[in-house]
């Protein structure tokens, strides 16, 4: 019998603790790794019962193998069977049977989790991308009703045929709408609009016990509050009504910094003063720190040039290049780093200026541009993206301490920082989420993304790296975007027992057999 770690809280029908010894990482307490595979005895009866209800459960190696891991590529697990989502009715039947036979159901949208949150360690994998239809576009009311398995990109394709666009979505084409609403979703316009989940007006949800419920800020309010940013614990989002807007291309500007602290301060200054429509920081290590500023209209851009640009301490590309050259000229022992910066710049910058996406100096389809670049330059079969989310005043410290951890572990990495407008009316949604409870006005998030190139890193090294970043969050009293799956050991440390226990009670009430996304949070 493997002893439970002190912070392991068994749940009814739950999994045995991680079999890797707690001392396997010298000096670093192991938090959580792949859960053991569920191996319930009733699988075959469950499949028979599901098929009786016209649910197609695919059990082939091909069907299951496709979902063996998520975008992180460090958590591996196989479902016993796969169900492709077809309708709320089908999902309702599936969850009812799953409750009866206590079979775990792991819901997957784009599969862009990095901590194994969308990996099924046995049981059913419910592939939501089967529900990818746009149901209704209202160009006058500026709303769209869509099935929730749809990729944001597919939604954008549909909306563009009406000259419309979504308001806020992750800079990643293959995130699904439902998955994003379940965790937040950050865009470079989040400093003005809040996270992607803040754009949801109403949802159709299938609860863990199979009821199909419409919820919003006025209807089934409590369910709405728990499902939005709820990490899939309280229901499967099957449809969503989202606010949308008229499509506009972007007027992009880049400012370059040699200091993280200065860039973050300038970013926060812009956000506080509503000086831009889009803002964010993207870096090459801590050497080339790029503050991105963009506008929807010429008026806003003009106002920025007139009032705010002179207050920024960043430089244009040429001036920054010369300063960087001067810096490395007197540091010959750093030539390898300088060479890397130069190479990276050569490869990366043209990608953001490809002629087919730039017309009259306007960037069209920013999500396409950024997403293609993200996958091309940062994607690989293994990805870890630990993050820190804090209130404004703690953010510089969080970024600088996280940066030091990156330097310790990896030769090359990228930081992505963005503000998130805290919407007062949505406070109840934010409970136990990436929005830290002490955030006033804006929360700030920073992702720490190693560039792994062709390096091979053990899971333990990657876990140690993530743990060191997450320890900063505990220390600062912040939060995280990716606190589920392999990082769930931090949940009690960051949110406290009282809050987590309250949510666990709600989860037990909503999901008696604890079948829905069981390995993600609790």
């Amino acid at each position: 019998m493997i002893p439970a770690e002190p912070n392991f809280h068994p749940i009814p029908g739950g999994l045995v603790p991680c079999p890797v010894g707690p001392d396997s990482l010298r000096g670093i307490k192991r938090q959580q790794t792949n859960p053991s595979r569920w191996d319930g005895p009733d699988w075959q009866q469950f499949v028979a019962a599901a098929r009786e209800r016209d649910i197609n459960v695919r059990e082939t190696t091909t069907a299951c193998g496709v979902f063996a891991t998520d975008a992180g590529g460090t958590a591996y697990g196989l479902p016993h069977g796969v169900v492709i989502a077809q309708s709320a009715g089908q999902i309702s039947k599936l969850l009812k049977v799953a409750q009866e036979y206590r079979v775990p159901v792991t819901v997957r949208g784009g599969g862009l989790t990095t901590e194994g949150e969308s990996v099924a360690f046995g049981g059913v994998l419910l592939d939501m991308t089967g529900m990818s239809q746009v149901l209704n576009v209202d160009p006058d009311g500026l709303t769209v009703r869509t099935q929730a398995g749809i990729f944001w990109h597919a939604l954008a394709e549909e909306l563009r045929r009406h000259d419309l666009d979504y308001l806020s979505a992750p800079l990643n084409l293959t995130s699904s709408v439902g998955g994003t609403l379940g965790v937040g979703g950050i865009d470079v316009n989040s400093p003005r609009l809040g996270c992607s989940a803040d754009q949801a007006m109403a949802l159709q949800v299938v609860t863990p016990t199979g009821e199909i419920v419409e919820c919003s800020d006025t209807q089934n309010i409590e369910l709405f509050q728990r499902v939005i940013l709820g990490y899939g614990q309280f229901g499967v989002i099957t449809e969503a009504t989202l606010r949308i807007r008229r499509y506009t291309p972007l007027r992009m500007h880049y400012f370059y910094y040699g200091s993280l602290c200065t860039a973050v301060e300038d970013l926060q200054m812009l956000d506080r003063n509503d000086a831009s429509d889009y803002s964010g920081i993207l870096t090459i290590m801590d050497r080339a720190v790029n503050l991105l500023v963009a506008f929807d209209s010429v008026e806003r851009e003009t106002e920025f040039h007139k009032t705010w640009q002179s207050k920024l301490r960043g430089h244009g590309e040429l001036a920054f290049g010369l300063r960087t050259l001067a810096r490395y000229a007197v540091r010959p022992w750093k030539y390898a780093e300088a060479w890397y910066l130069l190479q990276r710049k050569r490869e990366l910058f043209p990608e953001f200026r490809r002629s087919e996406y730039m017309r009259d100096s306007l960037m069209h389809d920013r999500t396409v541009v950024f997403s293609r670049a993200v996958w091309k330059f940062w994607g690989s079969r293994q990805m870890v993206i630990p993050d820190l989310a804090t209130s404004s005043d703690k953010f510089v410290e969080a970024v600088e301490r996280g940066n030091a951890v990156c330097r310790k572990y990896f030769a090359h990495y990228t930081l992505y920082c963005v503000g998130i407008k805290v919407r007062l009316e949505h406070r109840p949604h934010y409970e136990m989420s990436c929005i830290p409870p002490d955030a006033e006005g804006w929360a700030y998030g920073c992702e720490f993304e190693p560039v792994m190139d062709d390096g091979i890193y053990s899971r333990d090294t990657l876990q140690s790296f993530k743990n060191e970043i997450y320890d900063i969050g505990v220390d600062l009293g912040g939060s995280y975007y990716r606190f589920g799956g392999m990082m769930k050991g931090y949940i009690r440390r960051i949110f406290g027992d009282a809050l987590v226990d309250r949510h666990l009670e709600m989860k037990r009430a909503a999901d008696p057999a604890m079948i829905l996304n069981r390995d993600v949070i609790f």
Partner: protein
Amino acid sequence: MSGLLRGNSPISKTYADCSGCSLCLLVCPVWRRTCDIELTPHGRSKALQNDVRPADMTISIQSCTLCGACEPVCPERINLTDMVLDLRRTLGPPPGFPTSAPESRAGLQPISSAPLLLRDRALAANPEVLNHTATLLGGVMMAGDDGSDIALALEAGAEISPQRLENFLTSLRRSAKLIVADGLLLRHLARWLPGAPLVSLGEALSGLPEVRNSLRATDLYVIEPRAYHADYQRLVKYYDGLRAARACAFNLDLQRIAIPPSAPNLMQRLGLAPQDNDGQACWILHGRRISRIVVERYEDRTAFENVSDIPVMYLADLTEAGAC
């Protein structure tokens, strides 16, 4: 198997490099129709990573239309079209695939330095259209050996004898210009005849001033996807130039990938299963305000005529319709 039939890139990446990003799904017509990840490059790569045998993926391997849309968007730069062709060769052609001796075509065509037009199946079946196209292109010879049997064998995963291939290539080597209507054949000719003056029929026709100037701002111009995606980096700029010059709409998505007007799987393309492709043409037309559809590929007229009343024109017929 001839070495010529293998992947073209010296450092070609394979399914093992697939990160599972799903970008290929966004452009794949099979995904659009089925929402079944097993039938996509992502699904095939992940299945292969997990040691699934090709024989257990037959439906997936046959479902691919070889439109090539997934290849330019794959951030890992996996030769996804080659991957399907390789898998098809592993499986062998489906039952019912004609097994006529392709060698019979050898020597059909005198070796010449004149520009050659290699027709596709649709043009071969419509001699009048073919002649008109050739006349418009001016001074081109019709290739007696158009390699259509090779294109079909490639698509089906059938054996192509090295002798047959060599005869075909020999007949092309001296030509000053090769205008190729079949996008899959064009992709392969680019690797079999490195440096040869190859151009797709669509690009050749749209480069003619009289054709180009006949395009209107209210036209939807339908690019032939296979040739476009095979030479994406260059052609995305070419068509962007055409858009800037003529202001017409294109069958391009937000990633500037060509949406195929139809999505026949292998069995459908070989005529062994009925077609059910209206969805693609409907999606291309969805929400667009256009007065005319102009297709690069003669065969694509039908896909639009089946689902809409908007006039459809073959690119070479534009000059007859007159400039605007």
